[in-house]
């Protein structure tokens, strides 16, 4: 039933996690690079920030054109605050679900994080303490989303600049327990895995052995940079070679059905986006989605 909504199956026709097709290489759709994305002949999926789909406005024409040519569009929430101690605000949940319906999305995603507390907006995704109490909060809010959503839902562990003193579980245990209790899929951000490993002084590929890789719905690949001795997952810098190496290491263990480039500002010339998309294709073994070179 899910496959019916998912648009064309991937090049191999394989079905990945949650019955989703094998989409290969995709990209985060942003208005600033809509023209570039429109010119990607092999593209089978894009992700769009869910809150950018304004319920009072038409879907952006360039995004609708992609949808009409069979490219799957995955809404990616950033403001539900799944890890907040309080239940998700009903209006935000309603808008999230409405965006998924309007986009005829085969899949939707959000973060394992909180973005507000005590009535104050943090303005960014904040890490949770890895405690049983936080697992319970994530599980309760994920179930609220799943009750309203008739498509698979994937959760993304975030990049953390700091940790909480009350941590009881390893990151692998924390993620695995949430997935097991909710049945949610995993949106694995390889750049976040890299950032956390650098900032905690741990080996980056360690997490790959600690989470269920067969539950990965898709993968984020993004750039970042070092400031004040800390690696920041900026999405506005080039993807470092170490992150491409991690993509390869992940695919050697278990190749996910889809991987995408995430860029959120300081947009580079088209050539640089092409290099990074082709880099993901090379590291994963999926076919390139960019136009063939001269």
């Amino acid at each position, binding site marked *: 039933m899910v496959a019916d909504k998912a648009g064309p199956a991937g090049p191999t026709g394989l079905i990945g996690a949650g019955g989703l097709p094998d989409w290969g290489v995709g990209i985060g759709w942003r208005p600033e690079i809509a023209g570039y994305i429109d010119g990607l002949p092999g593209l089978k999926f894009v992700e769009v920030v869910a809150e950018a789909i304004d319920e009072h406005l038409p879907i952006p024409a360039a995004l609708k054109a992609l949808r009409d040519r069979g490219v799957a569009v995955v809404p990616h929430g950033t403001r539900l605050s799944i890890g907040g101690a309080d239940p998700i605000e009903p209006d935000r949940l309603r808008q999230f679900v409405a965006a998924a319906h309007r986009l005829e999305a085969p899949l939707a995603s959000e973060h394992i994080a909180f973005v507000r507390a*005590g009535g104050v907006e943090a303005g960014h995704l904040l890490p949770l303490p890895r405690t049983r*109490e936080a697992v319970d909060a994530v599980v309760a809010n994920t179930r609220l989303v799943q009750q309203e959503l008739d498509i698979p839902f994937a959760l993304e562990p975030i990049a953390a600049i700091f*940790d*909480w003193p009350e941590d009881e579980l390893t990151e692998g245990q924390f993620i695995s327990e949430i997935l097991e209790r909710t049945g949610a899929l995993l949106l694995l951000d390889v750049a976040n895995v890299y950032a956390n490993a650098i900032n905690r002084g741990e080996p980056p590929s360690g997490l790959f052995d600690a989470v269920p890789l067969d539950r990965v719905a898709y993968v984020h690949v993004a750039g970042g940079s070092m400031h004040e001795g800390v690696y920041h997952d900026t999405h506005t810098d080039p993807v470092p070679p170490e992150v491409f190496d991690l993509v390869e290491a992940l695919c050697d263990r278990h190749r996910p059905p889809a991987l995408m480039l995430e860029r959120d500002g300081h947009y580079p010339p088209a050539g640089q986006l092409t290099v990074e998309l082709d880099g993901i294709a090379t590291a994963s073994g999926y076919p390139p989605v960019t136009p063939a070179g001269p």
Partner: protein
Amino acid sequence: MSLAARQAELVAALTAGAPVPAGMDPVRLGIAARALLYKRAGEVARRWPLLAAGLGPDWHRVFAEWAGARPTAGSLRDGWDLARELQGRAALPEIAERELALVEARWRYDGRTPPRPRRLGIRRVADGRLLTISGRVMVIGRSDSL
């Protein structure tokens, strides 16, 4: 302490200059707070391009000084509140004056609750007047400057 209380403590420390919650690394929280301000400045600059451009190389410093102990109210209101404050002390760059006037002509904002579209209004700007009818803004007088 409950998860809700700990989360509220952390958000207050990162956005409103509240004390570092017990047991947390003050150095890392400081880095996180500066990263948050930098990201927020970028979002406000996208919504208020002439405010940021008018301040030029001072933009990030001016924004960080203003926003350091103020949680965000969204980029529209953050930029609006900052522009009004700068205007109040005659520190708003000229191109940002025009941007503010145009936004004030289209929306009604009391500084405390979300802005609402203005149906009808007229506002004086340096070189003419802005007339708002049913949400559309027209310039009366010299029209080559907006």
